[in-house]
């Protein structure tokens, strides 16, 4: 199996990066290649990094309530760049209804507070096996 490559990104102005860093480290410890963007990324910057790094997944961490603006914008930017083989996923404080709406738009699974690292790592490994194309 090809090595999984994940871009972990913190979009927007919010600096609460505990979750992003813990997940990044758990993925790395599971043998997944992780690129962490650091803070204050725009959708454009994230899509560009995804393209340059040729990742299989983009994982956004959003705790500021701006998820309904940011996820669709990142999707648009990825599509604009003709990227159609990346799974856009993520986590944060995202109410269930919003998760459903985002999923319908083409966003992959989103993880809320209390999720175990094992569950997150499994998702990346399982999804990668299925070669599921979410952004299309």
């Amino acid at each position: 199996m090809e090595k999984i490559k994940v871009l972990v990104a913190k979009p927007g102005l919010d600096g609460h990066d505990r979750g992003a860093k813990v997940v990044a480290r758990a993925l790395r410890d599971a043998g997944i290649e992780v690129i962490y963007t650091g803070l204050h990324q725009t959708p454009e910057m994230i899509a560009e990094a995804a393209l340059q790094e040729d990742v299989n997944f983009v994982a956004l961490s959003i705790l500021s309530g701006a998820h309904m603006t940011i996820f669709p914008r990142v999707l648009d930017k990825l599509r604009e760049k003709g990227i159609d083989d990346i799974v856009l996923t993520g986590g944060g404080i995202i109410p269930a209804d919003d998760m459903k709406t985002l999923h319908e738009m083409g966003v992959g699974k989103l993880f809320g507070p209390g999720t175990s690292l094992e569950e997150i790592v499994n998702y990346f490994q399982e999804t990668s096996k299925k070669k599921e194309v979410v952004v299309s």
Partner: protein
Amino acid sequence: MLTFDKKLDDDKDYQKDKQWKDETRKNCKERRNSFSNLSGMEINPLYSPFDLENTDFERDIGYPGEFPYTRGVHRNLYRGRLWTMRQFSGFASPEETNRRYHYLLKNGQNGLSVAFDMPTLMGYDSDDPISLGEVGRCGVAVDTLADMEVIFKGIPLDKISTSMTINGPAPIFLAMYIAVAQKQGVPIEKIRGTLQNDILKEYIAQKEWIFPPEPSMKLIVDTIEYGMKHTPKWNTVSISGYHIREAGANAVQELAFTLADGFAYVEAAIERGMDVDSFAPRLSFFFNSHNNFFEEIAKFRAARRIWAKRMKEKYGAKDPKSLMLRFHTQTAGCTLTAQQPENNIIRVAYQAMAASLGGTQSLHTNSMDETLSLPTEKAVKISLRTQQVLAHETGVTDTVDPLAGSYYVENLTGRMEEECEKYFTRIEHYGGVIEAIKKGFFQREIAHSAYMQQKKIDKKEDIIVGVNEFVDKDEDIEIQILKIDPHIEEKKVKELKELKSSRDQDVLKEKLDRIKQAAQNDENLMYSILDAVNVYASMGEIVQALKEVYGTYREPVIF
């Protein structure tokens, strides 16, 4: 007087103590391999006088209201006056926030605490393209003095104390608050409250900075100096461990890093030429109250002792007020669970009790729904009632520092102090707090702690009720959540644009140029900022002017 310095092998009591402990260890099966607190300190089955061999009553414990203030900064603490019940809030528009404040005051709250939205915290106006989607989301959006006038409409600033959680652009908000007071006809020496204004913990933990560390420190010293001269009842810096803890630090790290930040501000102000006793009484602290009950109480007690000792011995402070560590507490947001959210009410109640037994001066209790969204009015009311039940029904307020003399609590308080001193030495090796920040020391320590805590939860070494044990399968979280109207952003942007175009552009430019000039000349910036906010210069415009002089900061990426 009790002394705890006997550990003689021929002492009968010591032999009995040792025998009991050895036998218990050998003969009593325990349900886990070891017991430790969240800082990783091993906890023994029993504590006795012989666990206090390093504790000296007079040097380390003493009396409330007396050095080293371990037992509290006030002689009679809550018998005199209860802690201030101060709920952090603010959301959406200035009008909505003003309405929530009147609601809270009507329900018995006695101090306000303003939560700003992300763009405001980062120094961007609502109409900045980078603010899109974040205006009014996790706090109130404030662009100009006009917004502050609305937020405090009908609230007399000489009667109510206000805490403002803002750091990067803090001097601008102090200036706006002063301007509102002046418009209400309140003499500015009467305003009471606290500006968070703690940039060091932003680089360390919360990541809401604007400028590089050195000019940021200069701005903070400006506010300290201004406060000393003009607003004697205003707390100029609230040195905050809360966010350090929320970012993943354990209790010892929270305590050590926060106090180290405090000493860094003291040193910076002394370097400006101020006498330590002229400003230190107006420094206050802000801690987290987390799950491990006794560990938290020991942390609060150790904080006071360490501060008092260092301020006296290292910085030569003489005014008792300089030695007294006063603090606000907030219950730990990171302990709240999205699962079975009503359980959070119980967590918050225990954490609040730890804060009161630790002698806090003011308290914010979190609402049960905060892992899902900003709290609803009902959830906020329950959390305020939690404090009122604690204060009026449990009796914990009847005597001062009731846990003093507990072998366990005193032992833990001493260990907190020892562990803290070890961190101070490490920070000194880096060349101080700012150098340690630049080298990523704190960030690495915190990221590592956060990861280890999550691993323990995943392995069920730490149990979180409803999350990794006692889980309700197929739980459908039925809780009403607060939705922010997306039109608020459009309205805010439109109003700001109208206000911006209605100003006298020449006057505005002159005021902003004056700020830049003052920054270049290294003058105290409070005066020119106050002039600018009075002509409705926006926060973003003032920040931009300062960025042109100071530049911005990017952190080393560590995980």
